[in-house]
């Protein structure tokens, strides 16, 4: 029996080893598929370790396992440590991360077969780094370490969004993603620093213990927790920092599935879950989290309604679902939120990979250039449908239970308005997802080329995920669920009803054409335009970037060159000019020189009077 710490370290170390190998051994990296094989094998190992860890956990006698090494030495003990902290939450999350990583990497081998070998090698190097970072984030034993890996996953996200760096849109999206999440991270790091100053430690265990013992100083804690939450806002694409996620779809689709749907974006939720004992000390922040989450969910859903790009629809739905999770956390339903995180990880990865298969087959992201694909690629159609039903929250798929739990939790938490928003979102979610399903797979339309189902290396992961999505749901349907829905009994029917209504409405609009989408759009024209323009948030940020930051930099650059440096140059120019002026006393006329002597004499005499 290998102990939990070792397993965790193995899960962490394998992808890291793969990354170092790929980074350092250039020939291996340039070999492409071999690099992919190494990466997949490594993350497969991680998955294995994660599974064993999950099944054998908790160890006897302890519900957490913690290992720590000194990282930043200081007088009287380490200032900060690195290590692993395994508890049940981390163990489950670890499995999710390893699993999705493994499947996505496998899928990528097929998806990216057209890439050149060096590019592929680079891709898998990034993926290994991501797997390492994400696992490190999950296993982090303190805030600082979490922040470190938090930033590293951000880096991987940046690198992978910009994987096709020659595409200007990809380049722009990568940078945008980095900047926006970094803006949130400023809050995170400020929060950590302030927390350290308050509590003197970064360690979760110590902090939780202090929270338990009520020895945690509460002054300013609200601010601290709010700042830390800002990090989650950026990473988990909460309003108003959600703008980067749709653009991030410029990356390869497997990347979107892994990073921008299943794992990294959920890190914010994981962070709040992880630090929940601390958030419990600051209920005001929790309420804020709930409101923002619900609002994000609704806002993203409305934006999802009008997208033509299949991945963007999914991206907005991700934002929306993350909003659900956050709302749950804010309402105190931490279990529900985390549960949704897991199920969402599965079915959203599935959806993305399915979308990827479609895109791979038809060569476009635009849903209006697709149609009747179910006939051409039935396997893809089925798994996509499974994912969609789960996302829409249809019994007995996984999403139904987790979403139900959230709705119940939010209602119980007393957040009535957010509850209403979330309920509305259920309807919208079902509508926009089935809009995609109908348009892509069933409605009339014409896709170019000869679309066909993907090869096994892509299909395998799809079916695995579909199976899990359905399986987990059925497990709950049969077993009654581990996570009890505490809410009133009318919530399940309500949510199911709303979802079905959404589906029906989508069917009427896009399949039967009984309702004209254009007419709908005209009816709610202001809203429609606003949604099309993303509620002008991108324009606002663009304005801030260009107007404030670049404008300020222009001003400072000008001041530096012409004022600060200008003064230096002025001083030197004046010195030179002064020399030039002064030497004109040297007129060449002998008598002026004699005046010099006379003046000197007077000077000396007058001077001596003074002193």
């Amino acid at each position: 029996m290998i102990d939990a710490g070792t397993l965790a370290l193995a899960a962490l170390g394998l992808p890291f080893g793969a990354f170092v190998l790929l980074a350092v051994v250039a020939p291996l990296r340039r070999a492409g598929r071999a690099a992919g094989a190494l990466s997949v094998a490594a993350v497969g190992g991680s998955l294995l370790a994660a599974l064993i860890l999950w099944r054998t956990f908790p160890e006897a006698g302890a519900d957490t396992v913690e290992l720590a090494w000194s990282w930043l030495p200081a007088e009287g003990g380490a200032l900060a440590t690195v290590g692993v902290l395994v508890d049940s939450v981390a163990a489950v999350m670890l499995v999710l991360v390893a699993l999705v990583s493994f499947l996505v990497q496998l899928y990528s081998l097929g998806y990216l077969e057209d890439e050149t070998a060096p590019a592929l090698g680079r891709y898998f190097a990034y993926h290994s780094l991501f797997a390492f970072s994400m696992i490190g984030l999950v296993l982090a034993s303190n805030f600082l370490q979490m922040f470190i890996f938090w930033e590293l996953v951000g880096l991987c996200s940046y690198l992978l969004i910009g994987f096709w760096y020659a595409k200007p849109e990809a380049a722009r999206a990568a940078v945008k993603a980095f900047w926006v999440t970094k803006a949130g991270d400023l809050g995170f790091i400020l929060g950590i620093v302030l927390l350290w100053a308050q509590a003197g430690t970064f360690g979760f265990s110590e902090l939780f213990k202090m929270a338990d013992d009520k020895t945690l100083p509460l002054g300013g804690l609200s601010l601290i927790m709010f700042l830390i939450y800002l990090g989650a806002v950026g990473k988990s694409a909460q309003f108003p920092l959600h703008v980067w996620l749709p653009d991030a779809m410029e990356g390869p689709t497997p990347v979107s599935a892994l990073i921008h749907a299943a794992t990294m974006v959920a890190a914010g939720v994981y962070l709040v879950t992880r630090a929940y004992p601390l958030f419990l000390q600051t209920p005001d922040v929790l309420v804020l989290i709930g409101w923002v989450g619900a609002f994000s969910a609704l806002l993203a859903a409305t934006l999802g309604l009008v997208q033509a790009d299949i991945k963007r629809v999914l991206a907005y739905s991700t934002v929306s679902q993350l909003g659900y999770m956050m709302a749950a956390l804010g309402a105190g339903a931490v279990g529900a939120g985390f549960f949704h995180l897991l199920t969402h990880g599965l079915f959203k990865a599935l959806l993305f990979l399915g979308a990827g298969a479609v895109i791979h087959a038809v060569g476009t992201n635009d849903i209006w250039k697709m149609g009747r694909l179910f006939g051409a690629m039935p396997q893809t159609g089925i798994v996509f449908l499974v994912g969609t039903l789960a996302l829409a929250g249809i019994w007995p798929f996984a999403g139904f239970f987790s979403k139900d739990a959230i709705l119940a939790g939010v209602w119980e938490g007393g957040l009535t308005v957010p509850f209403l928003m979330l309920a509305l979102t259920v309807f919208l979610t079902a509508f926009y997802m089935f809009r995609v399903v109908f348009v892509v797979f069933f409605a009339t339309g014409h896709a170019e080329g000869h679309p066909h189902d993907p090869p096994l290396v892509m299909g395998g992961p799809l079916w695995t995920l579909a199976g899990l999505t359905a399986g987990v749901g059925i497990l709950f349907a049969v077993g009654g669920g581990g996570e009890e829905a505490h809410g009133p009994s009318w919530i399940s029917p309500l949510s199911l009803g709303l979802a079905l209504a959404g589906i029906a409405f989508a069917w009427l609009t896009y399949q039967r054409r009984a309702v004209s989408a254009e007419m709908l759009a005209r009816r709610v024209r202001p809203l429609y335009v606003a949604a099309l323009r993303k509620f002008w948030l991108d324009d606002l940020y663009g304005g801030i970037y260009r107007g404030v930051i670049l404008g300020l930099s222009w001003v400072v650059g000008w001041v530096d060159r012409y004022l600060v440096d200008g003064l230096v140059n002025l001083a030197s120019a004046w010195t030179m000019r002064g020399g030039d002026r002064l030497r004109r006393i040297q007129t060449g006329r002998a008598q002026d020189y004699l005046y010099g002597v006379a003046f000197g004499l007077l000077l000396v005499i007058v001077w001596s009077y003074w002193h």
Partner: protein
Amino acid sequence: MSLEAAAFWGLALVLLASGLAVVLSKNLFHSVLYLALALVATAGLFLLLQAEFLAAVQILLYAGGVITIVVFAIVVTERLVGERLVQTNRGIVNGGLVSLAVLIAIIIFVTRATLPQTPPPPPADLTQAIGRDLLTRFVLPFELLAVLFLAALLGALFFARKEE
């Protein structure tokens, strides 16, 4: 007013007047002549101060030597240039102010000093003392003066000599 004082003021008047004439006269030749007058007046002062030997030297060397050289120089150069040398002043106000300032500065110091009101009785044989000192205490500067004359002569000759 004693005779001595009268002589002093008289000589001083002559000295200053001729001095001013030296620096203001339009004609260079006149200037030189006024200088001669000033030098002679100075010699008179020397006499008044009972330095007869120096008065003699003053007249011989200065009024004789210097003036002759200067006149000679003027004549030579006038012949070289072929026209009369006219002498004017430039920046009289500035020069006057500066000179006046220097004068005031010096006079302030002089008036502050406590100076002897009456001269002590003169040594018995001043000229002899001068001669003795010159060849004993001041023999070194005396020798050096010879070298100095040599150098000055050499220089003056070098400059004045027309080559080729």
